[in-house]
């Protein structure tokens, strides 16, 4: 595929922000874009038509989950994931490597691929090295075990391996518009030679992925830049990958958003966007907090994904410009305002915070209404970013956004520093008093944010 799939429409004259259009097989995608995560072949609680109405242009699917259930064979028979799930616009799938490392504690990474023990009973899709360790269990029975993926029951254990070739095979079967290379994921807090090894291995695996990729005319393969929190490794990785994959439609910046210091995070994004080709979109994986999105856009990133907005929705937290509202709190029981008076989503048009307070975390309908609002919030934020870049008012937008989120110059230092490198100077003061606009609700919200951050991504 050629690089002309991405067109930059406008760039900010102050910062590195830009806005463009990425033309994919199923739809055009306006950048900067946020991609909601529809892990297992659906966006939890939101129907495809509702996603379209919210102006979702591209959805993320997880190869690890889809490879196990329903599995590549059924997806091929169904005519691909788009048809299976009734989604007409674009899809991006990850490589499956991240879930494997994060969900399966026993994962072991070798040059061949990611080896792991699975307790799923019919993981035929990953079964390139199937060796049964136990005779009991459901190997002979086709019925899959119904369980939460993160706590599989004691089924038969099997040794499985996800290689770059296998990842491509499954992603080709899923048929997403954008597919990701299998990368060697190390925790972003890891230091030492393992980081360098992972970077070099990711470069080698990129080559294998590209060779195994069988639907090049339909699906765009994105390399994933690794290199931990080391500027030199990141640069080296980009040099290698851009040399190896000159035809790549876009690049991902991986290995971040894993609990590292924010000051390191933004510097890695900054160095990556400095060195990646300007003509191609840059996808920062795992980013979804509004302030992170605004900063990353200023640093020149174009695509983002994160489970946070929709996961926090199901826990009863609504996103607003000032942060989030934990609607489970009693103070909302007589609050008859919509979540956000300026929001035009179904939830804000039809419901008060008071009613949502009564049903959150209780009815499936509430998970749906909350997800709809939070997706609308993300989409609206990205639309404002795109429009402000087009009209040359992006720095102004950033200043207003940060002032609303961090009133009276209370913005964290990393945001001030990151924006300063791209010439957007926000007002910062030492916070002397509690911000006057806040009430008891926001104090309680801070607690929830901390709680949720632990399980994020």
């Amino acid at each position, binding site marked *: 595929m050629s690089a002309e799939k991405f067109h930059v429409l406008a760039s900010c004259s102050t910062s590195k922000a830009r806005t463009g259009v990425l033309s994919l097989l199923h739809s055009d995608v306006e950048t900067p874009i946020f991609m909601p995560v529809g892990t*297992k*072949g*659906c*966006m*939890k*609680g*939101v*129907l*495809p038509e*509702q996603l379209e109405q919210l102006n979702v242009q591209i959805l993320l699917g997880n190869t690890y*989950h889809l490879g196990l*259930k*329903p599995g590549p064979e*059924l997806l091929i*028979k*169904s005519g691909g994931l788009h048809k*299976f*799930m*009734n989604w007409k616009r674009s899809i991006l799938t990850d490589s499956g490597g991240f879930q494997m490392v994060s969900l399966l504690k026993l994962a072991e990474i070798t040059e061949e691929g990611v080896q792991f023990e699975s307790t799923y009973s019919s993981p035929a899709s990953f079964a390139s090295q199937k060796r049964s360790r136990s005779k009991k269990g459901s190997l002979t029975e*086709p*019925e*899959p075990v*119904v369980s*939460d993926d993160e706590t599989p029951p004691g089924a038969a254990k099997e040794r499985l391996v996800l290689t770059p070739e296998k990842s491509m095979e499954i992603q080709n079967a899923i048929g997403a518009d954008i597919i990701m290379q299998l990368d060697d994921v190390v925790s972003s807090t890891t230091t030492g030679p393992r980081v360098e090894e992972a970077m070099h291995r990711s470069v080698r695996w990129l080559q294998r992925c590209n060779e195994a990729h069988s639907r090049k005319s339909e699906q765009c393969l994105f390399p994933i830049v690794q290199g931990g929190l080391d500027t030199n490794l990141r640069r080296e990785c980009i040099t290698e990958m851009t040399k190896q994959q000159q035809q790549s439609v876009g690049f991902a910046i991986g290995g971040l958003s894993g609990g590292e210091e924010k000051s390191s995070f933004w510097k890695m994004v900054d160095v990556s966007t400095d060195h990646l080709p300007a003509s191609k979109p840059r996808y920062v994986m795992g980013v979804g907090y509004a302030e992170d999105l605004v900063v990353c856009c200023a640093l020149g990133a174009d695509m983002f994904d994160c489970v946070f907005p929709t996961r926090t929705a199901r826990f009863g937290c609504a996103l607003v410009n000032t942060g989030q509202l934990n609607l489970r709190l009693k103070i909302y*029981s*007589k609050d*008859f305002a919509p979540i956000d008076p300026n929001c035009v989503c*179904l939830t804000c048009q*039809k*419901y*008060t915070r*008071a*009613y949502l*307070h*009564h*049903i959150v975390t*209780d*009815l*499936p*309908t*509430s*998970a*749906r*209404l909350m997800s*709809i609002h939070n997706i609308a919030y993300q989409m609206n934020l990205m639309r404002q970013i795109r429009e402000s870049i087009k009209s040359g008012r992006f720095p102004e937008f950033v200043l207003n956004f940060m002032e609303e989120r961090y009133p009276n110059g209370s913005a964290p230092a990393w945001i001030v520093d990151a924006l300063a490198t791209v010439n957007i100077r926000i007002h910062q003061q030492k916070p002397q008093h509690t911000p006057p606009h806040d009430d008891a609700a926001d104090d309680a919200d801070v607690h929830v944010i901390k709680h949720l951050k632990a399980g994020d991504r």
Partner: protein
Amino acid sequence: MCLSFIRKSRFFISARWYHSSAMEFSVKVAPSVVGAAENAGEIRRGNLSLTGRTGRMCRIETPGCFVHTQTGSIPHLTPDDLQYIDPAYISNPPPLNMALASLSMLAPSVEAFGKPLSTFVGYPDSFVYLGLNDPLKPPKPGSNEKSSMGLWNRAGKVKVSPEAFLDLNNKLHPDMLQIICDMDTQLVGASGQRLTKSFDSSLSWLDLFLKSRQGSPVEAVPVLATVGGGSDPWRRENFCKEVATRAVDGFVVDGFGDQWLSRWKEWESTGDLFESHKDLVSLSLRALPETKPRFLHAPLPPKAVIYLVEMGVDMFDTSYAAALADRREALIRTEDYAFDVISLGDQKYFEDLTPLSTRWACYTCKNYTKAYLHHLIHCQEINGGVLLMIHNLNEYLKFFHDLRQTIDNGSISLWKSQSSHVKVATNGNGNS
């Protein structure tokens, strides 16, 4: 042809009419064509026109149903999903049936809100009928006390005395309501003492409410009296005769304890449990005035609905559609007059790339395969329940629509002949 013509001609020998300030009910009544001669009731076919507190009219054809809700929301759905419910089957906005049990939690908020309950729950133009219990959450035995009815919601038990009942209704201000009743009478094993207490409390609560609502915000709202009596024929009949003399607009047949609701699944496969209590329902219905609508709330499979319609029940609710969706099951029309229930979690649907139904296409059938639904269910996705609910609600409402049509052309017995096939099919496919 000839037979149906004869039936048709002797059909609807009488028409009845009832009206109050906010309710108009016209019903045509004819002797039931089928059923045991002794207990045979009457086939009723009518129109129920209701005027909500906002002045909006709501017309429901009977036999028909209100749309069942939980804490004010249609289970699994968001309001925009109503676009997927065929408008030929139910008026839009749909009339909603809510439960005081769960809504009692909302009362302080709704009162402070100042706008109608329907607006508060996201269905501003709907007519709201406030019943007592969610048909899917049977009342707990032993919850009632001498001067209060016990209702359960997620915060625990709410003791509803006649005064508290009026207060809750004043705050929630529904468009129609069901009056409290001490209907904690089991079908099997209720003592004579319990039955007597239930009888006395229910009547006194009813009278107290009717008196105390004078001059209150719900003064002009149509009210339904609950008719109980448990398993005692004498009390059933006499309770109805008493209630029939009160100034109420309709009746809810209940007083069967939690067994009535919790064992509905048994009727679905065998019909037996239902048969044995048919007499009791019939007793209540025959003692009620023909002019006023009769309601009965339970997650009723089509077969049970047909039985009850033949006995003279006018109004139901859609809780069956939600009950099936909750159990990951789909209601399928297998023949013109027969249904099956399939369990989408079943492994046999893993690779089934056909839609739920090919007879007609609802949103779910148009866009998704059984394999996809199976996948969603195995992943415990919310969307599995959503898609099944959209399908089941369409099937259930279409059933009522078709049932009315067969009544109109005198061919209701068609449902009987084919539903016997279903019994075998249902038992055979391993649903339990």
